[in-house]
Every structure is written in C-alpha cells, then in structure tokens.
C-alpha cells in the first residue's frame, strides 16, 4: 500500500548506469581495453644486433636499452645470446642490458629484441631525476670560446627561453651560408656535438639522445642523434637536422641518458645494428601484458587463475540472459514455462552449440514426458515424483550419450551439459500444463521458452557480449540499471497490442 516517490529510485538507477558507463570509458581510455573484440594494435618489433670479436677472456657487454621512451611503451623484452648470462640493470635511471660470459673467442653475435607499442603519451616522465639537472661544465679554448660566445649572444638576443635559444642555435648551424664563427665551430666538431657544447656553455642543461626511425622491414639501421634540453620542467627533444621541436613521429628514443650506448669489455670491433618490423597483435593481448607487467590490472579478471576465469566468463554472461528474459516477458510479452528456465537452457546451448543442443533438449523432454505420463497415473507425492523424474532424466541423458556415441555421433555427449534438475522441472511443468490447459498452451509456452532461450543464446554467445562482459565487468551495472528500469515499465506489451485489438470496435 506504500506509495513512495519514485524520483530517488530513478536518480539512483541512472547513477548506476552512469557509473557503469563512466568506469568502462575510464578503463577504455586509461588502460586501452578496446570496445570491440579483435581490435588490432600495431607493435614495433625492434632487434638490436651486436657483433664483436672476443679475445678469449671474460666478456661483459653492456647495452643501453630504452627506458620510458616518449610515445612508446615496452610490451616485452628478450635477449638471444647462446651461452651468455643475461640481466637488465637499472642504475640511476640508466637502464642497461648486460651479457656476461667466462670465456669467449672469435666473432660473437648478441641479440636484444624489444616490442614497443605506440602510446598517446608524448613525453614520458623521467625516472631517477628528482632535482633539476645541472648544465655540464664545458671548457672551450680560444678562439672557439669567443666564437661560441658571439654565437650564443646573437642567438640569445633573438630568443626568450631555453627552447627558443636552442631553436635559434640549430637554425644558425643549419643555415646554408654559415658565418665565420659557425664555420670555425663546425670545423673540428660535428653539428650535434657543437650544439651540445654551445647550449651547456650558455648554462642550459643539454644532452644528446639517440633515436631510431621506425619503418617497417628495415634492416641494418643505426641510431640518429637528437638534442635534448631541459627547459626547467622536462626534457625537450629537438631534431638537430631540421630544428623541429618534439620527438618526430615513429621515432623511438633508444638512449636518453648520458651513459654510453654500448660497452664491450673483453672484445673489440663492436658494432650495433637495428632491424625493425611492424606487427599487429590483438589489442587485448597488449592490455593484458601491460597489466601483468605494471600490476595495473588489479581490478581486471585476468588476474584470476585461468580455471576460475573460464567460470567467470560464463557467470558474467548470465546477466545478459536475464536482461533478454526481462525484455521478452515485460516488453514483448512472450509466455515462458518457468521464469528463468530459458536462460539456463541458453547456458547449456552455449556449451553444446545451437542445433545439437536443441535436438538434445527436445528429445530429452519428449522422452521424459512419455515417462511422466505413466508416473501421473501412480498418484505419487510431488517431491518423490520430481525425484523420480530427475533419476529418469539422468537415465535418458546417459542413454542418449551412449547410443549416440555407438552410432558415431559425438554430439550425443553434449546432452550432459543440460542442468538435470531444470530438465526434470521442465518436464513436470510441461506435463501439468498439458493436463490442465491442453496441448495448445504447451506449444505456446514451450515454443516461447525455446524462442527466448535461442535469443538469449544468440546474445550470450556473440563475441561482443563475451568481450564486453569479461573485460568491462562494470557494464553489468548498466545491465542492472536497465533491468531495474524495466521493472517499472507499465506500458503495453507487444502481445497485448494484438490481444486487445478488438477494442478498436468500441472506440
């Protein structure tokens, strides 16, 4: 008799739906979980190949490897190097791959493979630098010192910040008609070294980074130098050849720290080459790998043991089935025997696949009905009647499985996926319905149940539903909200538009 205001209910339900969508969007945006199954993501496979001549002594090879390269995230790293011990060390932000061996002689080849995913973050946070870096002390001899000072003054007068100073200097060094000072400076140092010296001389922290231009199916590539200056907040990258600010597209900054790229102890003639390959892999795999690596996926179901995962996969599909039943009964108005029997049948269909499942279901129920016909003449009490039916249903399923197997139909075995108790109850209900309401009602309700079961099966077995329910568990809040709202639907059912159609006469 209570008549509460419905506004709080609607607000709460809409909040539920909003929360579900917001969480899902968040998961999509921050973790990159794709909305659709089968979304592919490009991955760059970069191979660093190190060749050197070993002297027959203990060998230590140390290679700087990418660490927080802007615009990329590391998906996996591995080293291929027979007989070598391998480790990745991280010393004050200088991340290095180290190979060691007691004794090696002759030509040696080591591989370091890494898979990088392009990410949207352009400047990754630098690790290991708490304080702002200081400019490196540079000592220049005359007349280079004067030339450098003049150049810095010229550029400084046309700039307002460290970044604009760097831009000015690059354009001066790149000018087609360099003045005397520039010519002098470039006479015995490379352009990038000159820039490095000039900027540090001008008290702007600068360093040389090395980058790799990523192009599909390239081999024997080498690293290109890039200039990085510290603008007071973060490191800004410049292309010294063009003066462009920022990391160029598809360029992987392999080395950003000041350490050397490659150190070989116990060998000589070391060389490093890079080969690059572009692959596409399912985006989901990327997310999972990232979550595993960063422990970010605490809320993800992928953290569970595989066995439990497959159980949850099924469980999380059930709300969709329940939603289908709600829609079919409340909006469409299909009669079913047993409210959620269709969902359980649909779950069994998911395991058996549709047609064998339908055939198995109909044959078990038909055989059960024939036996139930005899039971009803025995006047058994309800509990023992249902119990008898359960035993009979198990006999029938075993029979179908064995006979089917003997005849060479492996699909006969799938009948065991059906929930026995539900089958027994279905047979009981259908039988009572037949006695009380006649065959017509049995056809209506039985057909309705199967129709709803098939629709629920189609929804639950669709790759999209499986993908969304497992990767965005929060979307179940939306399903819950929809079911709650459906419970408030007081409009006409589709079948009522037909049932009440004679009313037209009285209008």
């Amino acid at each position: 008799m209570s008549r509460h205001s419905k506004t709080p209910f609607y607000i709460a339900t809409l909040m539920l739906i909003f929360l579900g969508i917001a969480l899902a969007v968040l998961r999509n945006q921050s973790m990159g979980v794709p909305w659709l199954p089968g979304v592919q993501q490009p991955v760059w496979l970069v191979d660093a190949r190190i060749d050197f001549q070993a002297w027959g002594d203990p060998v230590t090879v140390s290679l700087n490897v990418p660490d927080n390269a802007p615009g990329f995230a590391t998906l996996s790293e591995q080293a291929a190097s027979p007989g070598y011990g391998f480790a990745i060390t991280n010393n004050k932000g200088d991340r290095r791959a180290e190979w060691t061996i007691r004794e090696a002689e002759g030509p040696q080849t080591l591989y370091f493979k890494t898979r990088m995913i392009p990410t949207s973050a352009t400047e990754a946070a630098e690790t290991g630098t708490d304080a702002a870096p200081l400019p490196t002390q540079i000592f220049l001899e005359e007349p280079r010192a004067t030339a450098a000072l003049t150049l810095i003054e010229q550029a400084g007068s046309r700039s307002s910040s460290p970044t604009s100073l760097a831009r000015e200097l690059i354009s001066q060094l790149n000018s087609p008609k360099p003045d005397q000072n520039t010519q002098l400076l470039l006479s015995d140092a490379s352009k990038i070294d000159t820039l490095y010296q000039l900027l540090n001389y001008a008290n702007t922290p600068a360093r040389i980074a090395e980058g790799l231009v990523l192009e599909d199916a390239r081999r024997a590539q080498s690293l290109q130098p890039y200039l990085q200056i510290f603008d007071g907040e973060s490191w800004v990258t410049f292309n010294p050849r063009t003066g462009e600010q920022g990391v160029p597209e598809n360029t992987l900054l392999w080395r950003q720290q000041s350490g050397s790229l490659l150190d070989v102890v116990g060998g000589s003639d070391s060389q490093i080459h890079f080969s690059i390959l572009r692959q596409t892999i399912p985006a989901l795999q990327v997310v999972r790998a990232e979550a595993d690596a960063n422990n970010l996926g605490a809320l993800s179901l992928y953290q569970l043991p595989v066995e439990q995962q497959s159980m949850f996969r099924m469980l999380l599909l059930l709300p969709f089935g329940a939603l289908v039943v709600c829609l079919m009964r409340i909006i469409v108005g299909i009669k079913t025997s047993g409210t959620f029997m269709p969902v359980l049948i649909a779950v069994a269909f998911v395991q058996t696949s549709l047609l064998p499942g339908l055939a198995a279901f109909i044959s078990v129920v038909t055989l059960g009905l024939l036996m139930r016909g005899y039971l009803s003449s025995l006047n058994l009490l309800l509990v023992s009647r249902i119990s008898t039916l359960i035993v009979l249903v198990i006999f029938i399923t075993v029979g179908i499985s064995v006979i089917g197997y003997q005849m060479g139909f492996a699909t006969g075995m799938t009948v065991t996926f059906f929930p026995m108790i539900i089958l027994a109850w279905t047979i009981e209900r259908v039988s009572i319905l037949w006695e009380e309401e006649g065959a017509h009602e049995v056809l209506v309700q039985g057909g309705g149940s199967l129709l709803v079961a098939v629709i629920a099966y189609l929804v639950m077995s669709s790759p999209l539903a499986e993908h969304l329910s497992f990767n965005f568990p929060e979307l179940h809040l939306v399903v819950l909200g929809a079911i709650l709202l459906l419970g408030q639907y007081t409009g006409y059912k589709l079948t009522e538009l037909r049932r009440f159609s004679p009313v037209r006469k009285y209008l």
Partner: protein
Amino acid sequence: MINKLKQRLFNDWIKPSQLKQAGILNMNKRNVDYIARYNDRSAYPLVDNKLKTKLVLKEYEVSSPKLLEVITEQHEITGFRELVQKLDGFAIKPAKGSGGKGILVITGRDGDAFVKPSGSKVDLADIQRHLSNILAGLYSLGGSPDVAVVESLVRCEPMLANYSYQGVPDIRIVAFKGYPVMAMLRLSTQASDGKANLHQGAVGVGLDICTGQALHAVQFDRSIEHHPDTGQPLNAIKIDDWHKLLVMASRCFEATNLGYMGVDIVIDEEHGPLLLELNARPGLAIQMANGTGLLPRLHAVEALRRPHFTAEERVAWSMAQLGTADKQTDQPEAKTELTEPVALGV
C-alpha cells in the same frame, strides 16, 4: 493463402495510442500500479485460502455457500461416508486451490455412486482418493499441504443456468478500494470443460455496472453474439438484485483490505447471491467483455478526495458515476468526479 496469412499477421493489431484512448489497463500497469500498490501482501493468505475467506466474510455479512465439513487429517477421510450420508449434492474444494483446480462437484446420488454435473459417476473410493490428493497439496499453490472444504451444492438460478454449458455461471466484479468498478458474467462452455475461466475458453459477458444489463460478450477475447454451445443470445441477460451483488462485493474490501481484487459471486435459486471466492490478481479480459477500459474508472476512484465509508455509499457512487449511462452523455468522466465527493458528502 499468403494473403490470408498476411492479414492474420498484420491486421489484428492496435496502436498503443488507441489502447490508451480506450483506457485499457494492461498487465504491467496492473501489476505495478494497482496490485503492488494497493494490495498488501499480508492480506494474500486470506484470499488464497477459501476457508479463511469464508470465515472472515461471514462476519461482514457476506454470505457464501454453506460450509458442511472441513477435512484436515488423512484419517478423517475414512469417515467421509457418514458425513455425506444425508446429502444429495455437495462440492469438495481444496482450500488453497486456484483457478478452479481440484474442485469436485456432486449433484446427486445413484445408488452407491455419486453423480457429477456432466452425468458421469464416481464411487466413494474415487472421492476418498481425491480428498487424499487435496490434503497432500496436489492442487494447492506451491504444493503445500492443504485442507479439503466440503460445501453445500449451489443450485444455480434456472434462468442463468440456461445460458451456461454444464458449469454454474458466476459473476466477477472488480472492486477497487471497495468501489465496484466493472463486472462480467462468466459462462462455462464445452471448450472450457465446464469451468468458468476465461483463458480456458469460457464466455465473458460484460455487465453494465449501473443496471446489471449485458453489454457485450467475448470468448478468447473475441466478440461473440450467442453462446457457442447453448446457442442462447447473450445480449438479453439482466442480473436481478444487482444492487445487492454490488454491495456484497464492496463489503469484501473492509473484510480483506485488498485495494484491487476480483470478487466471484454465484446466484443460488434458494439463497440468492453467494460469494465463491476472492482473487487478488483479477484478469484483464473483463475489459474486453465490457468493451471499455478499466483505467478511466480506476482514475475516477483514485481522484476521489474523500472516500465513502460504507459499502452502500460506495455502490451508490459507482452506479451513479461509472456506468455506461453517464458515458453516453459524452461528458468527460473526470469532470464529474471532482464535484462528486462534495455532492455526496456524508
């Protein structure tokens, strides 16, 4: 052939706007806005148990078929023969049965055998087994243990009985907050197997709430003119003592406190109107039989600012306001409602 199929598929539909215009109450709205809102769950056991209903209604001067015996224990069944020794006709009902299930009607005796309305005979052992089944809960909601109620036989008024095939016709009145809002006569047919359930194929004849005069008749929600088995024209029916019936239905509200219910009444040739049972979830087909929707009438009752306190007053209001008579004057119903409580103020 294909055209015929097309016609069946596409022509028998009505737009939701048209249904709304007709004020047809639908299943979802009935469940959410009327049953859930006006029917207290605690009142359900009262209406789901015929014995309880009978005893409570007696105190509110609503008469029902005479209670002869209640059989609650298995061992009482053996003494059943002595109980019915003197009786010609009686009805055995499961107290918690629904939809007419498990009701056994005996109209007479033929030697040792008992005669059913259809003319077929059963012996004492059959009846005893039936009683045992009732006690075991075969016919009760959810299979819970039950008791068997033995009532004296209702002998239907011959005039009405003529219309029906085998079963006793009953009158279903929907009462909303104690106001009778709509009524129909239910006639059993061969298709309904002598039962007065509309969804099993019984004929529903809409009755004018003012006069008890027949309006329309339907079977399986489709319009008919004559009874399919007896061939009687259905539009000539008029129920006598209409006011008394409505007052009976109205009193059930005080007895049960159910805001929205169906009241089933039979007319005995000797005792007059007798209450058969109450239904907390009355069906929607009554609208088809009346050719009009429940919603305008329900809204009119809901709009009453001051409800009437006695059954007689409520019936007077319903007869004055809700019948087809005032509808024919083409006055919007809601308008008359607003002034009404003042006019009828106690």
